[in-house]
Every structure is written in C-alpha cells, then in structure tokens.
C-alpha cells in the first residue's frame, strides 16, 4: 500500500468516527441503539475511539422484547459497566401492558414488529433527538437508500421520498419540534468489513456468534433455538446441533447455521466464502418482499 493511503477499513473507520463526532456536535441528546449484536458493538467501539480519552457522550438505549438470548443481556450489562455508560431499557412488555401494542398470536407470533412502538415511546420519553444505529446499506434493499443522517417526522416515520440530499461530508442535522434523526455511521460497511474490523481490533462479541452446542428445531430451512417462547408444531423435534448465529435478533426468529467456527478468524473465513445473505435466516424479513421497507416507514430501526 502506498504512503498516504488508507486501507478500506481505515477509511471506513475514519468516516464512521467523523459521523459520530458530528452527531455529538449537532444534537442535544443523542443515544446509541444497542441490541447486543455485532453491528451495535462495532458502533460502540468506534464511539469509544472517537471521543477517547473522554467517555462516550451518548446514552445507550436497548429495546428489550423480553425474548432476548440471556447471553445477549449478560454481554450488554458487562459492556455498559466497563464503559461506565448510561443505559436505558425500553420494555416491549410495558408497551403490551399499557395497551399501546397487542401481543401477536398464532404459531408464527413474535415481538419483532412490536419493538417499533416501544422504540418510539422510549425516544419520546427520554427526548432523544438522534438515535445512532448499526444499520448497513448492504443488508437489505430498503436500507440501500438510507442516509447517514436519516430524518424522521414527528411520528417517527421514514419517508424515503423526502430525505435530505447528503453532499460531500456536510451533514444537516437541523430539526423541527418533535422530529428526530436516525444516524447510521457504518452505512458503507459490508458484513465482511465488520468481521474483519472486529477480528483485527480484537473486539469482544457475545458467545452466540461462535459455534456451540444448542438445542434447536428445524424450521423454514434454518435452526431455530429451542426456548420457552417456542411452541412445537406437529412433526417438529428438538435436536442438539453445533451451530452459530450470523445475526442476532430475538430468540424466536433468529436462525443459526451449522458451523465449527469457534474463533474470530474462523468466522471470518466462513463469512468470506458464504453463499447466503446474512439476513437469510431472519424470519422477520421473510414475511413479505417489502417487510423491511414497511417496518422502516413505521419507524423501525
């Protein structure tokens, strides 16, 4: 590599740090949307780097469906303690109790869609004017059109036709009363970039990403973890497999794949030669062709 050139990871890092610093400068009360997944862990690591040796100047917001992997919650609490960060948790359970959402029923019921309401309620309660997320443009076609600073109206809705143009690196975070922004510092990263960066920088991630033995059920071509929230259908049986998860969502909808990759290096190899998309094991995206776009318009992450 020639002198005065950055590698792709260094350039992506520089871009993300720039965006995080603009977020700190342009907003009064920004929060990092923390899910415990690798993308939000990456955003957190980048934020730490951006403001070091000062603390990360953002609150952390976790929308807890109550259907999380216990490992995710344990990881979250440990990381927050380590950073000395302020964490607020929005509980989907509370939104159900207050009647603002209704629990889905039926065999495919899950709490994925309900999260949006809880998220919007938490934004309003804590008066966050910017929520920083780990969304990436390579994940899904509706996300390919996201801005770094994504404008949301006072109902938290995303209007893809009315987004502000983003020119050069000039970001316009001005907002009217009641509106807020979603900020996506790692928009330009691909799944492989994320794994390469995590590996190179030796960043800790939940054990769920590494191959481990687990009780699972075969459903829609993927291994769904057995849990108290799952009801078995006829002919389904619980088996033990060595699997790992490529993305982490709720325990009810996140499928794992059989794998022997139990180190970051091995995961990296697996991702590099993967022939299926990352979200292919996520049943929340399989509900329809426009599942992500529809949820985003309502105010999803």
């Amino acid at each position, binding site marked *: 590599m020639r002198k005065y050139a950055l590698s792709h990871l260094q350039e992506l890092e520089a871009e993300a740090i720039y965006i995080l610093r603009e977020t700190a400068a342009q907003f009064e009360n920004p929060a990092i949307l923390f899910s415990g997944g690798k993308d939000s862990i990456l955003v957190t690591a980048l934020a730490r780097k*951006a403001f070091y040796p000062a603390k990360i100047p953002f609150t952390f917001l976790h929308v807890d469906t109550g259907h999380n992997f216990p490992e995710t919650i344990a990881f979250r609490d440990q990381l927050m303690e380590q950073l000395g960060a302020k964490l607020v948790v929005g509980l989907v359970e509370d939104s159900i109790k207050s009647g603002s959402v209704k629990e889905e029923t039926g065999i495919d019921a899950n709490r994925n869609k309900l999260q949006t309401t809880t998220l919007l309620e938490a934004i309003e309660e804590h008066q966050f004017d910017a929520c920083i997320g780990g969304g990436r443009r390579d994940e899904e076609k509706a996300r390919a059109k996201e801005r770094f600073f994504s404008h949301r109206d006072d109902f938290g809705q995303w209007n893809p036709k009315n987004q502000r*143009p983003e020119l050069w690196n000039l970001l316009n975070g001005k907002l009217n009363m009641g509106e807020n922004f979603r900020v996506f510092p790692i928009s330009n990263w*691909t799944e492989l970039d994320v794994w390469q960066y995590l590996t190179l920088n030796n960043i800790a991630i939940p054990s769920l990403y590494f191959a481990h033995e687990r009780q699972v059920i075969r459903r829609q071509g993927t291994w769904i973890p057995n849990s108290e929230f799952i009801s078995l259908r006829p002919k389904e049986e619980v088996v033990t497999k060595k699997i790992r998860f490529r993305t982490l969502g709720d325990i009810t909808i996140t499928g794992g794949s059989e794998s022997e990759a139990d180190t970051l290096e091995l995961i990296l190899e697996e991702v590099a030669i993967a022939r299926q998309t990352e979200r292919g094991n996520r049943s929340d995206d399989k509900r329809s062709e426009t599942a992500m776009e529809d949820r985003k318009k309502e105010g999803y992450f």
Partner: protein
Amino acid sequence: MGLQHEEKEILRFTTAGSVDDGKSTLIGRLLFDSKSIYEDQIDNLQKISEKKGISHLELAHLTDGLKDEREQGITIDVAYRYFATPKRKFIIADTPGHVQYTRNMITGASTANLALILVDARKGVIEQTKRHSFIASLLQIQHIVVCVNKMDLVDYGEERFNEIIEEYKSFASKLRINDVRFIPISALNGDNVVDKSANMPWFSGDSLLGTLENIHISSDHNLVDCRFPVQNVIRPFSDEFHDYRGYAGRVTSGIFKKGDEVMVLPSGFKSKIQSIVLGEEELEEAFPPQSVTINLEDEIDISRGDMIVREHNQPEPQQDVEAMLCWMNSDVMSPRAKYAIKHTSVEARAMIKEVLYKVDINTLHRQEEYDTIGMNDIIRVKMRTTKPLLVDEYNQNKGTGSFILIDESTNETVAAGMVI
C-alpha cells in the same frame, strides 16, 4: 486465508442512466460476475424472471429498490451498492439519469472518485450523456469512464465505437475533464465487463472491472494545503486526564506531523502539535481523510468551527463568496433570501445577493434571463455571509471549497455550493 490482513483501497464511483440504457443490467453484471451475489438472491432472481417469463437471469432486478420504484420501473433516489475484488472495495452511488433527478446525480457525484457514463452504441451521445458529463466536470470528479454499451447490437463494430469517441470528445472539449477513457461493452452478454471480450479483438484496452481495479486514484486528495476543521473539543474531566484538551476532526487536506508549527484560525494564535492520536494509538502524522485528535503544546481557546492550518498557507477568510449553486429543493429560490450555510464545521447565515447566470445543462449555454430558480437549476451567484468563511477554491480543495444552504423555516438542504 490471511483475509484479516488484507488491505484494499476504496474506489467510490457514480453511475447515471435511464431505464433503457442498460445501467441496471451493467451494475447487476458487475455484482454477479464479481461473485458479490448470494445464492438466495439468485434464487429470488430466478423466481422473478420465471414469473415474468424471461429465460435469462434478469440482472437488472438485483438493483431493484423501493416499492414505488419497482412499480414504476425507475430509480428515484441514490442507491448505494457494494462489491469487492481482491484488489479494491467498490462503493457505487447509483443515481437516476433523468433531468428531474439532477440533484441526485450531484449528490452521488460529490463523493465519487470516478464517474461511469453509459452510452447506447445505437444512439451515441445524447442529452443525458452531456448532462452527466457536465455534472462530473462541475463536481470535479477526477476520472470518467465512458462505457459504450449494447455493442452486440452494432455487430461489435470498431468504426461505430470510434465515431462515438469522436462525438464525445468534441462535446467534452468544452468541459474541464482530466482523465476520460472509453470501453466498448455489452452489459447483457458480459463483453469487456469483467473479462476481455473475444467479440472485440480490435479493442486493446482493459475491461471495465480491470479499469476500475487499476485506475490510479492516489492524487485525488490534496496533500499540500493543511486544513483541519475542528469538530469537537475533547475534555475528559477525569483525574487521569485532568488538563487534557484534544481537538477532534478530520483532515481535509495536507499532512500534519507531530512537532509542526501551526496556526489556529480565525484567532491567529500559533502553537506546535504536541501529539496526534486516534483512540489509544499515537500517530506520527495525519493525512486526509483520517479522523484524529490533535493536541497542541499551548493552551489556547479553540472551539468547533475553528481551523488548524499552517501560517504560510492559509485559506482566504471571505464574507463575499462567489460560487456555483445547484438548487435541490422544490421550493424556488427567493431573491435576496437568507439561508443557513454549512461550510466545514462552521455554521453561519448567507444572503444570495446576485444571480449572475443560470446554466442550461443540456447545451452548456449561460442564460442571463430566466423566470425563477428552482429544483435542479445550476446557477452562478454572489453571496454575503454573516461571518468570514475560511474558504479555498473548490477546484483546489473540495473540502474547504464546498458548502450547503439550508432553508431556515423547513430545515431542508436546498442547495449545494462550490466556491469559485
């Protein structure tokens, strides 16, 4: 595999075109042939193609976007796509080519190293080709690659290819373009897209992907004029870092080294660089587009919007700015109206005092008479700002030569500006 040690450069390029010139097919082909498409995406593609009764894989569907876009068969907004080869990581800003979407082309062009322009071999240079080329030259994209597509429909003829080159060159002589190359391709059949085509042995140049992988982009950053706009001041207020004061920002241009004598604008205070840090790591020097934190030897009052430069190479503090503006909002420009202006990390207000002319982007003629300035118009203006801005000419320095205007009542970004 050693992947974790793999270092690639990023090349950002923009494409523009309409539905039928094969732009989506070309991007689909690049993604497909560079093996950036996953099996489940191919399965999905097969299903869509079968449903439509097409025998081949409809590659254009790989770039399908939002519901409205699919229904209308058009691209409304800038879409970003990614692929990588062992040599480079590519970021494509895919923008629609119609005149009403000029603003999207400008958005995509503002961060691009390279513009890919598609010409239909049967039609030759058309208005849209000129429009896209003009925008590429206005935004100073360093490299232009003209792909003459659908060569299969003109019998892969060398003569037709050369005719189009001549046609393009005679029009482009009016533009400021540094580096332009021509490649005859067929996106549908894959000729000269990834591999060299056996159908056009007369073409001695590289394939499109070969060109994208090898084009020299190192001189795209200005490494001479030191400009470091301060984004934030880092003050930990902890026992361990009691008196720590770091200036966080991204190097716009030039190379900053530990020990360098620097000057802070607008105050004019001088100091020395004590250290340059990125997280816990100390760096000997910083260059564009790195994000770092600079610590100075002296305690001086610095805040967001200030700029660290060299004493003998300073930007011009200007309150009267002459610029090219691209109007990007559906609200028309009001004469002598005031807007918020964002330039580097500075925010001020600006008034448009005078519109010198409007550019007809199809003919490149200057129109001194016009009715209104509205969406997609490109104009030359004189502005007055509420405080001096530390600007350079856009042609010398994109980072300190660019700005945006914001409507203070709607908060929307209404114009992109380039300092002349």
